[in-house]
């Protein structure tokens, strides 16, 4: 498969006869990255799959009105993040769960997840991450696992770089404290 740049993909998409082809290329290019980003937030594979599909449905519906002054890649991440956070808040509302119980439920999913292949320390790290506030989890995951630049994160989360740096710093401190004590 030819590796098109995002600009080239968008240009192909503007051609009405090739829009399905362009969309398919976008899906193939970003499926894995978006999946892992979502999976670390919702933990369960089935939930991640649902959220990823919904993300691409939104992408398909919104790609026509996408303005090229933003990057396609950050736009996709923004949709995926919003979909994942919306999914979690719907789950809370659906089962009338307080935040602590959502964390507990996600931790239990982690314990029983047949597709989790990490060691004990990695599991402990994931549990520590689950104790962070949702937005801080997103910041930590993007920076620590995906090594994303703060500027790109600022575009995705529509926050200042300074606020993101502070958020990441606090997240690291909390995680280290949790691992020390557990």
């Amino acid at each position, binding site marked *: 498969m030819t590796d098109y740049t995002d600009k080239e993909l968008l240009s192909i998409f503007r051609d009405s006869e090739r829009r399905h082809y362009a969309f398919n290329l976008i899906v193939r290019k970003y*499926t894995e990255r978006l999946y892992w980003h979502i999976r670390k937030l919702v933990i369960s594979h089935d939930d991640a799959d649902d959220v990823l599909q919904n993300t691409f449905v939104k992408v398909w519906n919104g790609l026509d009105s996408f303005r090229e002054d933003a990057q396609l890649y950050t736009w996709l991440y923004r949709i995926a993040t919003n979909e994942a956070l919306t999914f979690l808040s719907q789950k809370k509302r659906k089962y009338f769960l307080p935040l602590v119980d959502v964390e507990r439920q996600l931790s239990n999913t982690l314990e029983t997840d047949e597709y989790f292949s990490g060691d004990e*320390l990695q599991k402990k790290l994931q549990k520590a991450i689950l104790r962070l506030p949702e937005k801080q989890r997103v910041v930590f995951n993007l920076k620590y696992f995906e090594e994303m630049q703060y500027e790109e994160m600022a575009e995705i989360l529509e926050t200042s770089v300074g606020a993101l740096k502070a958020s990441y710093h606090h997240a690291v401190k909390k995680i280290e404290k949790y691992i*020390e004590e557990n």
Partner: protein
Amino acid sequence: MARKNNIKLEEINKANPFGVPEHYFENFSVRLSDKLSQTEKVKTTAFSFAWLHSRATVILAFASIALILLIGVIFVNYRNKPLSSKEMIEAYKYSAIQDLSDEQLAEMMNNNRKEKQLDPDSVSKANEKYKDEIIEYLSNENIDINTIVDSQ
């Protein structure tokens, strides 16, 4: 006292600890296409219902307008229908009476009353007609006419 681990974040394996079912990523785009076509179908159905609903609304609106127009036409036709001769006379009388002053109206009523009074000549003619019959009846019954006159 809580047990403490002196483990730093950098010491933890950074590799992705999550896994996916076999061929998940290979099959994802096919499943996504199915979902997109289902979503399109739902959208189309929703559009059809909305279209039907709007069409029903338009039909209802047109029917209401037609009904109002029909009632209007019937009403106007009824008002413009030519009067029967009897109705015309009644209407003429009514309008003629309305045009009269109080004095004229009083005079007309007086005339009506006079017209309705019995003519003395016709009364005497009627009396003459029945006079013979009365006398015959009285003689047959042997009744003296003077007796009747005295008893009154």
